């Protein structure tokens, strides 16, 4: 798979250099792999810090800015960042009001962020962690790694970020983030596998007439392999998985919906998917209060999409609408 890169080893640094060049509002520390706001966080505000493996752009660095993240820690491709990064980020952005770590539920991410939280605590930084685990393709049980964090991460970062921006305290911001996560369910399907820069082939082989159903965002195979079929049928299956798990999303509920491209799917196809999602939710009596359609939580050059449905409390919608100014999400400002 051809890619715009110089060497696989320099890919991340080269890409971060371009990110910094493109966005003067970001401070990109390439050496330490920490992206912060150039203007810092307003006095007394809680700071949201997120991070995870790279390869999911614009997540997370593309969401650093007013009304959303205070800092992002990009790890190697598909590899969680290291505690040093999160500690440096927390130290850089803490105003004294405390730091919220937004962590996608993967063994590596959780362990590295936990270590960072311990170290930050040693340094007198108050840390709360919001764990995102919205992916219903994964069986949730105390005997497993639990659900993965996927599309809901964006919703948590936007909504909790708006709460932090308006001055909510550490506990409140973290609580809002956890409620958004608890109210969200996601499901993803891949039409093609992704290829890591430097790898000689995609993460898995997928014939022209098959799809991977229930994939995550790391190029890993999904829950099952199925025959390719019309979009409406695929979307119906995805929504069935989400709705089966989302017991309290019923007639009269409001929702925030994200139809997310995995990186190589044209926007025209994502809109087609959204149309079907909207029709299915309408059939269930659910009103879509807000939506996003586009590439937000990607998996390099994978063709595919994920659907996230968040049962929206009124306060979520209010915080969703609050101004946000980041490279990849912006409105009201």
């Amino acid at each position, binding site marked *: 798979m051809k890619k715009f890169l110089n060497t696989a080893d320099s890919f991340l640094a080269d890409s971060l250099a371009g990110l910094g060049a493109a966005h003067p509002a970001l401070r990109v520390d390439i050496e330490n792999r920490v992206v912060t706001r150039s203007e810092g966080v307003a006095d007394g505000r809680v700071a949201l810090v997120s991070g995870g*493996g790279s390869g999911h752009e614009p997540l997370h660095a593309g969401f650093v800015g007013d009304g959303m993240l205070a800092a992002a820690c990009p*790890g*190697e*491709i*598909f*590899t*969680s*960042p*290291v*505690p*040093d990064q999160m500690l440096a980020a927390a130290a850089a952005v803490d105003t004294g009001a405390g730091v919220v770590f937004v962590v996608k539920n*993967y*063994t*590596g991410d959780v*362990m*590295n962020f936990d*270590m960072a939280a311990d170290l930050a605590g040693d340094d007198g930084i108050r840390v709360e962690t919001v764990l995102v685990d919205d992916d219903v*393709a*994964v*069986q949730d049980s105390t*005997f*497993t*790694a639990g659900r*993965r964090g996927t599309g809901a991460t964006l919703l948590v970062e936007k909504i909790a970020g708006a709460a932090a921006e308006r001055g909510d305290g550490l506990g409140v911001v973290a609580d809002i983030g956890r409620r958004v996560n608890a109210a969200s369910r996601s499901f993803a399907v891949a039409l093609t596998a992704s290829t*890591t820069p430097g*790898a000689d082939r995609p*993460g*898995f082989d997928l014939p022209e007439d098959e799809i991977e159903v229930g994939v*995550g965002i*790391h*190029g*890993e*195979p999904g*829950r*099952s392999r199925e025959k390719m079929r019309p979009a409406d049928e695929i979307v119906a299956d995805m929504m069935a998985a989400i709705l089966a798990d989302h017991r309290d999303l019923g007639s009269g509920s409001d929702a925030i919906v994200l139809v997310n491209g995995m990186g190589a799917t044209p926007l025209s196809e994502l809109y087609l998917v959204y149309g079907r999602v909207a029709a299915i939710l309408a059939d269930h009596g659910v009103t879509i209060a807000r939506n996003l359609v586009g590439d937000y939580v990607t998996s390099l050059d994978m063709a595919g999409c994920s659907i996230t449905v968040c049962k929206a409390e009124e306060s979520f919608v209010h915080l969703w609408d609050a101004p946000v100014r980041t490279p990849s999400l912006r409105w009201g400002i």
Partner: protein
Amino acid sequence: MDIKTARAWVRAIAASVEAGKDRLTRLDSAIGDADHGNNLHRGFTAVDAALATHPAATPGDVLVTTGSTLISKVGGASGPLYGSLFRAAGKRLTQSAPTPADLADALDAGLAAVRKLGSAQVGDKTMVDALTPALEALRAAAESGADLPAAAHAAAKAAADGAASTIPLQARKGRASYLGQRSQGHEDPGAASTAMIFTALAEAAG
């Protein structure tokens, strides 16, 4: 295990990870996210550099530096896990010339750290499936009076068997668990790298 052996062990791990990088990544691509080889290669390259610039005074120091460096440089699941394994083992290894039994004690402390962090049991299809039998073999050899080469050799064999034992299992921890039944029939990459770590110990011990 003297300091020369400790350093030789870490260097041998680095060399075998370099040689086996693609195999580890291939294993991880079948049931994970295709980065385990790169992760460990990045980590042990950094460990080599760290030990070259900050020479350790004792075998325990070597392992602590190894563990701290892995934690700072690897990321992912294996970074904190292997990092904690070596760090906790190194902290326990206070003797200047540890016996095989001392080493077994130290590595048991390391395994405890791994289990604390990842809460994996034997049979969950993780590095614990190779670590646990390797340390049992190491301790048994040490107790029966074996020297380090012999004890390390026994541990390496047990680790390799433990790695192979993961093939039929369904994963319950780590990324492979997302695959459910589809994780069966593949060797766990972390168990495979654990086997490499003990083979390296046997090499370094002579």
